[in-house]
């Protein structure tokens, strides 16, 4: 692969390459406002936004992104490139970047997919405990088996499984009487049933007799992992398979 066409060393810092065009900045401001409005509508519907911290943070984030585009389009070679490409291509690019920025500001990736928010490892998260879940089963031969959802449902990303399970796992461990607890426990039973069904398909000679959903809440700064007591939340018994 050859590498011959590129910037001169230090070219980015050459003052003569930079030129702020007010017309371009005005257009960008208009697009920025539209992007913020669309993101707010997607987040909140048509209700008026209340001035609060999340709104302020979103406006700051969008303003920083706006500054990037102003800088980019004030840089001569970038602007020249954009002007040299045909107008349909320019429109495609503008719409694409608009969709990317709107998805980022909406912060509701489930709704805006395939234009999700790119938020990975972006917010402080340093709790005292680490919560994780395990699945202990007993098969027809009486053996204890550890069932791993990541191996059974390989089409789902491991982190997705973990965050989904934490969603209903936390609620399933709420104190009795909380209405969310029963809804979550029903979800856990559905989840265990799905895991058992796939496990039994893969292990027809030793299918599961029971499966248990175990929660670990580890104070990792105080104890080693081996000392974390398991907390059984839900256990399902599985029917005998029909005789062939």
């Amino acid at each position, binding site marked *: 692969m050859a590498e011959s066409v590129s910037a001169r060393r230090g070219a980015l810092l050459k003052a003569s390459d930079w030129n702020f065009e007010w017309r371009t900045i005005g257009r960008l401001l208009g697009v920025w406002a539209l992007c913020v409005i669309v993101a707010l509508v997607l987040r909140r519907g048509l209700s008026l936004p209340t001035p609060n911290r999340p709104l302020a943070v979103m406006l700051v984030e969008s303003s920083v992104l706006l500054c990037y585009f102003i800088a980019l389009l004030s840089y001569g070679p*970038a602007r020249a490139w954009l002007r040299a490409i045909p107008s349909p291509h320019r429109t495609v690019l503008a719409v694409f970047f608009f969709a990317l920025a709107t998805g980022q500001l909406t912060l509701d990736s489930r709704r805006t997919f395939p234009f999700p928010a790119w938020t990975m490892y972006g917010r402080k998260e340093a709790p005292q405990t680490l919560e994780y879940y395990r699945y202990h089963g007993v098969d027809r031969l009486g053996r204890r088996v550890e069932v791993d959802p990541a191996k059974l449902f390989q089409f789902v990303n491991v982190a997705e499984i973990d965050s989904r399970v934490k969603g209903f796992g936390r609620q399933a461990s709420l104190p009795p009487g909380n209405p969310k607890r029963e809804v979550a426990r029903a979800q856990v039973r559905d989840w265990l049933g799905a895991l058992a069904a796939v496990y039994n398909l893969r292990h027809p000679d030793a299918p599961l007799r029971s499966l248990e959903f175990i929660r670990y809440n580890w104070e990792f700064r105080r104890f080693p992992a081996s000392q974390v007591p398991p907390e059984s939340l839900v256990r399902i018994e599985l029917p005998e398979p029909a005789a062939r």
Partner: protein
Amino acid sequence: MKLLHYDAPPSALRLVRIVVFSVWFLRVAFKPLHDLVFIPPSLYQAVGVLQLLPPQLEALLHHSRFLYGLKVVTLLSIALVIAGVGLRYTMVAACICATLFASLWRGFAGHIDHESVLILYAGYLMTIFLFADRWLEAKGQRRSPDGPTPAGVQLLSILAVLCFVYTMVGVFRTVRGTPGVYTSDSLMFWALRNAYETVDPTGHFGKYVIDYPILGQMLRAGYPVITLFELTAFCALFSRWYRYVFLVVMVPFHILSLFVLDVFFWENMALYILFFELGRSDREPKISPAQ
């Protein structure tokens, strides 16, 4: 000064198209999406445009036959794109099928992961630009003779999207997480959390951040550097030296992420091919946009 890929020849675009759709082919071929039939309705949440479908129609998408059929059609359309057959139709079919495939596999999800999303964007852009080229041709509009080549427009656009995504990640972290993500034990916690997400993670090193604090300190020291490169990713469009340094920093970072954070975006890394100039066109008077 000319931007990267300014004079890219059609062969460069062909190469990138093959890389992008080959990654998609592997992704679809090795993703057992048919197991989606086992996910109970109470745990499934539609994603993206699938949310707009009526529930009865959406439920049809979970049938085993449909899922197998989708896989076959997706693989077939992607294979035809790689072979360069009927691109106008096969690229559209591949993009629609791949989007549907990617939406369905995220139906059981707590958060939406970013696996393969950039590759999806690359496919979208190449497809839409193909139609834009045809439209120009049909209208008889001429391109600027000194402007970027049709292939160059596409390649730089994909690279710009890649850089913008890095920038968005960096901006998000800077605006919403600074200084907490750097001064707290967040990164150490994430490494530990990801190591316990599953019984048998790909990388086990996250489990050692408690016993070996140096590992956590290294992560913490490297984090602002990574963020700096994310924030400045746009410089890759202009500076060759920046591109080299970016790769020297980011490739090891992504590989280390596999072992420490159990996260690996190999599909997106395939797009690093765009950090290199892939040949130069000899500037023929008329370049066929069909390529």
